[in-house]
Structures are given as C-alpha cells and as structure tokens.
C-alpha cells in the first residue's frame, strides 16, 4: 500500500488534497454546462409553447366567428295574386313561380318592414334586397312549397343576411370598405343599424355551418361543412376497414413468420420508405390506378379512402411491428413451452399485449389520413360544390363528395373574405375531430395496457 502511494506521487499522478466543501474548477465547469443545457431545454419548450398558443389563439379568434351568422327577421306577405292567381292551391301551379319570381315579394316585404318601423332610406326599393342572402328567395319558396296553405298569408321569416351585412356585424366590413363595393352601399348599413336597433337583425349561432353543404362563391353565408364531413366519414370508414386488417396481417407475417432473407429485407426497407413518400404521390397513383385503370367514379369517397389506405398502411405496419417487437420474448417462450402452436402463441398472447400499440398506431394513422389534402386534389375531391347529402350508404361511397380538409382548402382559395373566415371555422371542426381521435387513442391505450 505504501509502495503504491509512493509510486503514484513519484509519477506526479497523485491528487492534491482538496476540501469537499469547495468546488474545484472542473466541477464548476461541469455544473455550468449542465445548467446551460437545462436552460436551452426550457427556452426550446417556451418557444414551442409560444407558437402553440399563438396558433390556437389565431384559430379560435378567427374561426369562432364562422359559427355565428346574421339573420334578418321580416314579415313576408305571400301574395296569392302572384303565386297562385287562380286560387287552385295546386302545388304544380305554385311551383311554377321560380326563385326569381319571389324577388318582388321580398322587396315588398322589406319595404313594408321598414315602413312599419318608420325607417327611411334613399335606396331604391329594388335594391334593398342586397342586404339579404341571394338564397333568401329560395328559402321562402321552399317553405311555400312545403306548405302551400301559406299562400295568401303574411308569414314571419328569418332569412340569412348577405355576407357583407354579416361581415359588418362581425366588424369585417366597414363603410369605407364599401365605398367601391357593387354589392352593398354604405346607405344599406344605415338601414341595418336601424333594423338592428329594432331587433330585426340579429347575429346568432348558426347550426347550418356545421350541418350544411357548401354554397356557390357568391353566397358564403350559406356554406357549411356538413356534407364534406360525411365525405370524410365514408373515407375514414374505407381506410379503417381496409388498412387495419391488411396492416396488422402484414406486420404479423413479417414480424413473426417471414423468413429473414433478401426479399423480406427489401420489403421492409420499402415499407419504411413508403412512410416517407409525399402524399401527393399516392394521389397520382390513385388517379392512375383507381380512376384511369379501374374506372372507379371520380371524386368519390371510396377512391379517396383507397388512396388514403395506401398512405396509411406504412404507418400502421411500422407501429404494429414496433409494438409486436416490444412484447417480451419470454411470453412467446412461455406459450411455446406449454405446447402452443406459433399461431396460438401470437393470437392468444402476443397480439393482446401488442394491442394498445396497434390501436394507437391505427388511430394516429387515421388522424393523419383525416387531415390529408394533397392526394384528394388529384382524384378530384375538391374544386366542385359538395351541395347534396348522399342518398344512402352506397351513394355515400360512390357519389362525388369532398372531405373536410379539401373543403377548407377550397374555401381558403375563394376570393370573398367571408370564405376565409369559414376556412378558419372549418379548421376548428377538423381539429376537434383530430383531438377526439387522439383522446380515444389515449383512452384505448390505457384500457388495454397490461403489465407483465
């Protein structure tokens, strides 16, 4: 022992005697480095949080306005002279009056309403209806056709205001901005102010935005996301039904049964590569195969679902294989040791343990597919007006439709700022769906998680 210590001091390797109460230079340096690293981490998280909050604030502040809409209440005299001159009461006859024919009735109703409230204006009677949505006439006509007994009566209607009036109430449109607008003049706004004071113009929650269908470019006040929501739903159905069984079966085979050779290596590498392929590539692949070769209908949720299935499969396969891999080999040994066949050991023991991972991967894959826009551009699920609900389940898969993200893209593309607002609103709904799916993923994970 003494020899050893003598040797060390002779070599000059011995440590100087130091006090534990005093930090030496190296320790100080190391501590400083650690403190710096922690600070970087905190800064990184702070930046991330800042952007997240900025994003959420932007979405909420821009998007919530899309959920409200301005309505105008007025008494409409459904003039029997115009609608049913002979007093037949026959729906056939009444339906001969087109939407255009209701223009006069609406003009008269507005004039009456203003007169009744003592509101004076210099606007010509025929121009007053610019305050209303151009869909108002169709709305009234539909009500009349639904109940022909209304003809000849005076009925109170609540019709949509035009998007300019709506924008005025939401602060988007001002008198200055209307100076060169052909659709509405500042004088109209005076009338709107007066009507609002009288309680006849009101902004309130608009279910039609959630349940309704898209509308033409000139009627943003009527547009809703409901129909494209249905389109997304049918697409997700296709994706789930196809990608879950195919993905899980592929993963089980590759992970548990496939021999390790060049072919399986090649397949594995390509699955990983496919996960990184831009989604628009899958779009053009779907266009080439499903539409041009297989002649499936364009713009159909079925085709969209097939394309998104192709896109989701790698994600599902990779996450399923990872969760199969994470099942400890001791469980497989245990099952084989009591004489279970390979398939029994997988289906009775390995798969249940891998289930949380598989489900999480699948739901995250679905969420990714739900938010995907690019491939839908190529198979024609944008660029038209998804105006009708599908008539049935088969129609739901096959009739042209849009999807939520494609609808949002479509709205954001349109010139009217009213549509820009709806795009934000659509994003809120899309995010709610994604959040719901993520929460379901978390709950399922908790529910199925078992320790071993």
């Amino acid at each position: 022992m003494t020899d050893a210590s003598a040797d060390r001091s002779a070599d000059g390797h011995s440590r100087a005697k130091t006090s534990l109460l005093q930090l030496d230079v190296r320790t100080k340096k190391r501590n400083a480095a650690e403190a710096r690293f922690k600070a970087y981490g905190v800064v990184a998280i702070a930046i991330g949080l800042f952007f997240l909050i900025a994003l959420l604030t932007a979405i909420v502040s821009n998007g919530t306005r899309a959920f409200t809409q301005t309505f105008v209440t007025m008494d409409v005299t459904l003039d029997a002279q115009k609608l049913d001159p002979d007093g037949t009461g026959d729906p056939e006859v009444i339906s001969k009056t087109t939407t255009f024919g209701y223009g006069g009735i609406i003009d008269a109703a507005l004039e009456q309403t203003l007169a009744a409230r003592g509101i004076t204006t210099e606007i010509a009677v025929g121009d007053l209806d610019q305050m209303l949505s151009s869909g108002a006439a169709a709305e009234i006509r539909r009500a009349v056709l639904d109940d022909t007994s209304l003809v000849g009566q005076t009925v109170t209607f609540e019709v949509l205001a035009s998007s300019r009036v709506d924008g005025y109430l939401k602060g988007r449109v001002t008198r200055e901005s209307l100076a060169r607008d052909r659709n509405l003049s500042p004088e109209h706004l005076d009338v709107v102010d007066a009507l609002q004071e009288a309680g006849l113009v009101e902004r309130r929650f608009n279910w039609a935005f959630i349940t309704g269908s898209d509308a033409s470019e000139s009627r943003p006040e009527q547009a809703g996301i409901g129909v494209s929501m249905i389109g997304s739903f049918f697409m997700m159905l296709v994706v789930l039904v196809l990608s879950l069984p195919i993905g899980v079966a592929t993963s089980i085979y590759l992970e548990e049964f496939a021999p390790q050779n060049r072919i399986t290596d090649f397949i594995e590498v390509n699955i990983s590569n496919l996960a990184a392929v831009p989604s628009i590539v899958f779009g053009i692949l779907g266009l080439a195969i499903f539409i041009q070769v297989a002649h499936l209908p364009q713009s159909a949720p079925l085709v969209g679902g097939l394309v998104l299935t192709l896109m989701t499969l790698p994600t599902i396969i990779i996450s399923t294989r990872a969760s199969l891999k994470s099942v400890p080999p001791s469980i497989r040994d245990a099952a084989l040791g009591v004489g279970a066949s390979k398939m029994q050991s997988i289906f009775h023991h390995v798969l249940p343990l891998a289930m949380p991972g598989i489900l999480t991967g699948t739901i995250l894959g679905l969420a990714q597919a739900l938010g995907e826009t690019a491939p839908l551009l190529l198979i024609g699920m944008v660029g038209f007006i998804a105006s009708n609900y599908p008539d049935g389940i088969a129609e739901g898969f096959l009739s042209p439709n849009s999807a939520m993200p494609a609808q949002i893209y479509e709205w954001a593309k349109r010139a009217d700022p009213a549509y820009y607002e709806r795009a934000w609103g659509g994003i809120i709904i899309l995010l709610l769906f994604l959040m719901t799916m993520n929460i379901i993923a978390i709950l399922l994970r908790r529910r199925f998680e078992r320790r071993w």
Partner: protein
Amino acid sequence: MNDMRLIERAVDMNDIKISARNVQVYYGDTHAIKDVDVDIADKTVTAFIGPSGCGKSTFLRTLNRMNDTIASCRVEGKILIDQEDIYDPRVDPVQLRAKVGMVFQKPNPFPKSIYDNVAYGPKIHGLARSKADLDEIVEKALRRGAIWDEVKDRLQSPGTGLSGGQQQRLCIARAVATEPEVLLMDEPCSALDPIATAQVEELIDELRQSYSVVIVTHSMQQAARVSQKTAFFHLGNMVEYDETGKIFTNPEDPRTESYISGRIG
C-alpha cells in the same frame, strides 16, 4: 399395438427416458454442442452444470426443440424420447412440447389470471371435457406446484401480481398442467431469493416421483442438493456424466474437478 407396449415396458425396465446420440448443435458457423451422448433416466433429477456459455442451456433446449425458433440454429445427431426420434420430420414440435414441459430462467407467467395461466395448456390440448374437469386439473397442477394454498382464494387475480418465487412455482404448475412426461428447467432459481429457492428445490424433489426432470443450474450446491445424476459441460463438450455423488466427490476428469473446486468457470 402389442409391439408398442413391449417397447414401453422395455423403457420402463431400462428406466431410460431420453437418450441422445452424437448430438451436434450449430448457431450459424459456431459449433455450440459437440458430440454429446447422454442417457437420461425416468423419475430422476438430472442436473447440467458448467460455466457460462458451455452449452448446457442450448442442449436443454434441443430436448423440446425450443431451438427451432432460432433461425440460425441447426441440430445434428439423434435425440430419442421413448425410443422415438424427436427430430424425425414427422414430429410436430407442438406435440412434442406438450410431452416435454419447460420452466424458464425468468418467471414468465402470462399477463392473465392465475387460473388462466394454468388452464391455458390443458385448454389448447383439449385435456378438459368440462369446466369442472378443468377446475380439477388446475387445482391438481397448483397443488403439484406447491402453490395451491397460497393462491386458492385469488385464482382470478393476475399471475403477474405474485412474488418472484410464487410466479416461478406458478410456471411450474403451468408446465405440469399439460401432464408432460419430461420437465426441463433452465436455471429455475437464478432469479429467486434463498427462501423461494428452497421451496422450488423441495418441489423439484417431489416432482421426481412422476417425471423425468432435467435441470440446468449455475449453482453446484443446488445440483448437489436436488439431483441424482449430474452432467458437466465445458466448451460445448459433455465432459463427464455420472451419479451426482460421484461427480462431486470423486470426478474422473481433471476439468470437472477444477470446476467443482472453483478453479475454472
């Protein structure tokens, strides 16, 4: 049919359950087991001892073809159980493993209830005709595993919630539930504390009444305590195989002696 009976009787008389002849095992290019010849008797505990990496676990796993799951593993030579070659192409390893049960180094109960752990084997082999039948099999197996008294009131609670020693006895119960003829144990006590080890060793001694037990162990004291026959493995060779008493007191090979006295290993 009569011939079969004769053979069985002969086996009983010879008391030889497993006989291995000229067994070679390769992992890829590595020659892991070289020229092993061994006769393992029925109703006996046979211990395999030897330093780490000597091939004793590998050899144990060739006895119920668990090595089949390793793609690079290749077995040559003959291993006969009751005079039947278990590497015959007609043999289905699944059927073999029902006959040759295995207990692993780390207790590995299924993440299921205690009852389901034991009932799983009999269920997949169709040993129970009814629920009552199955209950009986489970109880019998748990009694044989010397764990019945501790778990009889909580058969539906998870097997993974038991202590390490209890889990290992549960695994032994699970292995005997399928009515095997041979029980292979791969270092069954290496993850257990001394008290649990003592319980498992006692159990092994009882199991000898009904099965041929083959146990791999790192502990020479354990081999000396539980086994009647001991085989010493070194670098893939079976160096010596004899009565346990003889191996530990009067080994013939100098390598065995070095190992037992702690000079190698």
